[in-house]
């Protein structure tokens, strides 16, 4: 069976004035129809670059290597005409800032209609407008909102419009890049519920990109954590949050406390230091300078993403030498107070 999406050894290098910047370094995963995968990581981890590459939205001079199969078809070698057909109707994207992604001088209805008209030139104006109404209804907005301009909507409503646009051509895959990050807790819950229902109803594939591991773990079948352009840990959604097997995954998870967790009470946990500069990556494991459990060999051996034991699942893979040896990835002494010192770069 062909996967909906099959990514093999994807490597993306930006070419800038200051030389080549590796943003994604050898990422592989696949996604089936009806499945949800979360990509977690900090700014600069390469997660958004990865998302953009799936629709070839990166600047022309960016070097993209590897294999990116969408229903068995290689997106990287696709002719532009075919790519246009795949964008929106095969796979579509929900961007982060809905205020900036929507055109402020066009009505909502017009903007949702645009991809429909482009992809179905023979469709009559009436049919298009009834499709727009249907889409607005699906995302929980009344039909009269089609006449509104973006500034007349609240943040959550705009994000719903973005989702309606992404759904316009019945895609098989949706890529949501920080789709709920800027929203209030309750509105975020509404939008997540909407995405969850859509995935279940239509057997869509969903890639959710976010820095909030707790939301991804709650929402996704699988979660992959990225650091310095690589997947450093991947596994079943909820278990990734409750029982991480990579020290970076653990740090990312504990940044967002579970309310009621006595360990997090009056004990905010962060991670000292900054993410590495992509043009000057540390030797060995790229995480070792910030790692609380780093050993001597971590600075010399580059860890591969290998299967490790994790409670309640058999999918877990981690690129951590300590975890691969079956040892704990949490510091053994009672958690030391977080260092507030950031190294001078």
């Amino acid at each position, binding site marked *: 069976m062909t996967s909906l999406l099959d990514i093999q050894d994807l490597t993306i290098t930006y070419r800038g004035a200051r030389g080549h910047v590796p943003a994604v370094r050898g990422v592989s995963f696949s996604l089936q129809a009806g499945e949800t995968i979360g990509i977690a990581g900090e700014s600069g981890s390469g997660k958004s670059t990865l998302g953009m590459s799936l629709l070839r939205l990166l600047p022309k001079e960016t070097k993209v290597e590897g294999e990116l199969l969408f229903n068995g078809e290689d997106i990287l070698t696709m002719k532009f005409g075919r790519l246009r057909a795949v964008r929106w109707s095969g796979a579509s994207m929900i961007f982060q800032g809905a205020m900036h992604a929507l055109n402020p001088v066009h009505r909502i209805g017009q903007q949702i209609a645009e991809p429909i008209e482009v992809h179905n030139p023979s469709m009559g104006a009436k049919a298009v407008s009834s499709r727009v109404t249907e889409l607005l209804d699906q995302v929980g907005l009344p039909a009269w909102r089609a006449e509104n301009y973006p500034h007349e909507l609240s943040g*959550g409503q705009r994000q719903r419009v973005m989702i309606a646009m992404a759904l316009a051509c019945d895609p098989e895959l949706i890529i949501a890049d920080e789709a709920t990050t800027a929203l209030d807790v309750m509105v975020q819950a509404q939008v997540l519920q909407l995405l969850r229902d859509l995935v279940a109803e239509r057997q869509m594939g969903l890639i959710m990109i976010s820095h909030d591991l*707790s939301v991804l773990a709650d929402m996704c079948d699988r979660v992959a954590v990225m650091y310095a352009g690589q997947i450093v840990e991947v596994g079943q959604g909820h278990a990734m949050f409750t029982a991480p097997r990579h020290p970076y995954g653990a740090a990312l998870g*504990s940044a967002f406390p579970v309310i009621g967790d006595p360990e997090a009470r009056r004990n905010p946990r962060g991670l000292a230091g900054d993410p590495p500069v992509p043009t000057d990556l540390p030797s060995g494991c790229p995480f070792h300078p910030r790692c609380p459990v780093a050993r001597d060999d971590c600075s010399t051996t580059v860890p591969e993403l290998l299967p490790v034991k994790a409670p309640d699942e058999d999918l877990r893979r981690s690129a951590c030498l300590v975890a691969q040896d079956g040892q704990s990835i949490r510091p053994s002494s009672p958690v030391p107070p977080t260092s507030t010192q950031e190294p001078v770069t």
Partner: protein
Amino acid sequence: MNDQLLSARDLKVSFDLPGGRQAQAVAGVNLDIAPGEIVALAGESGCGKSTLARTMLALEDATDGSITFGGKSLPKSTKKLRAFRKQVQLVLQDPTGALNPRHTVYDAVAEGLRIHGIEGSNEYDQVISALSQAGLRPPEQYLNRYPYELSGGQRQRVVIAGALALDPQLIIADEPVASLDASVRGEILALFQRLRDDFGLGALVVTHDLGLAWNIADRIAVMYLGRIVEQGPVEQVLLDPQHPYTRALVSVLPDSPVGDPQVLTGEAPDASQIPSGCRFHPRCPLVASGKAAEAGIEEKCRTQDLAVLDADPRNWQSACHYSAQFGRDEVRGTAEPVADSLG
């Protein structure tokens, strides 16, 4: 309560809107912050939490009610207000916007000292010590840097150092970590906590992030449409919310302590059209599910406004007809009615 540092009493702030309408951003609030206390002010966008914080800093004019600092009313004159603002410092959400891109770290931190006329030979020492308190160490290495050379977390530390340089008694922080990365978030929150533990520096933290409150706050006040609807110690309010609004907010969080997610429909209504009766009733799950009707208080929910909660920090309170009648167990919906457990 004379031992409170900053207090608001019956505070109301309204804004004129086009067409002669008025938006009541803050519609009657009592809030106290004690020295060395960290209070979280939580709520959705548009609930008035930022307006309340800004008014407590005298950056907005109150329409009604009073604000006292150390037991005294806030001064009116610009000069005296300046002295007040030295004691109560503001930290904003976006450190990139708060820093002048053409000022070095030194200038950014020294600016407050200069404005408040604390110039002189020890300016350098004060800047160094503020940077060091804010966790930028060794401070000398940061002095001549520009904001673009710093990471988001370092920029927020510079903003906080600018506040610390004036040796304030209280920091008012509006979403101080919302624009920061996950790993930096914990670091900045740890800094707030350390400043409190080491220097007794209190904070009012405005946020929509309840996890932040769990991480650092002593008390939490939850705001809805201009009123505080529930306030009390963090453990009590977040683990067993009395008000159905707080309960819904907590319930939609991952691995929530309060059971099934209760996604409220719609968004917080406009502050220019505050519903009659309990301001939350149009979205209230207790009203929608008929529980309020069953209890015979639906009429009350629809027509009778609730009293403004008092500021007593020892008292866990919620502004809800239902919990007032039955106690919090019934709001939770798992126990027998307890007639007057909370009065």
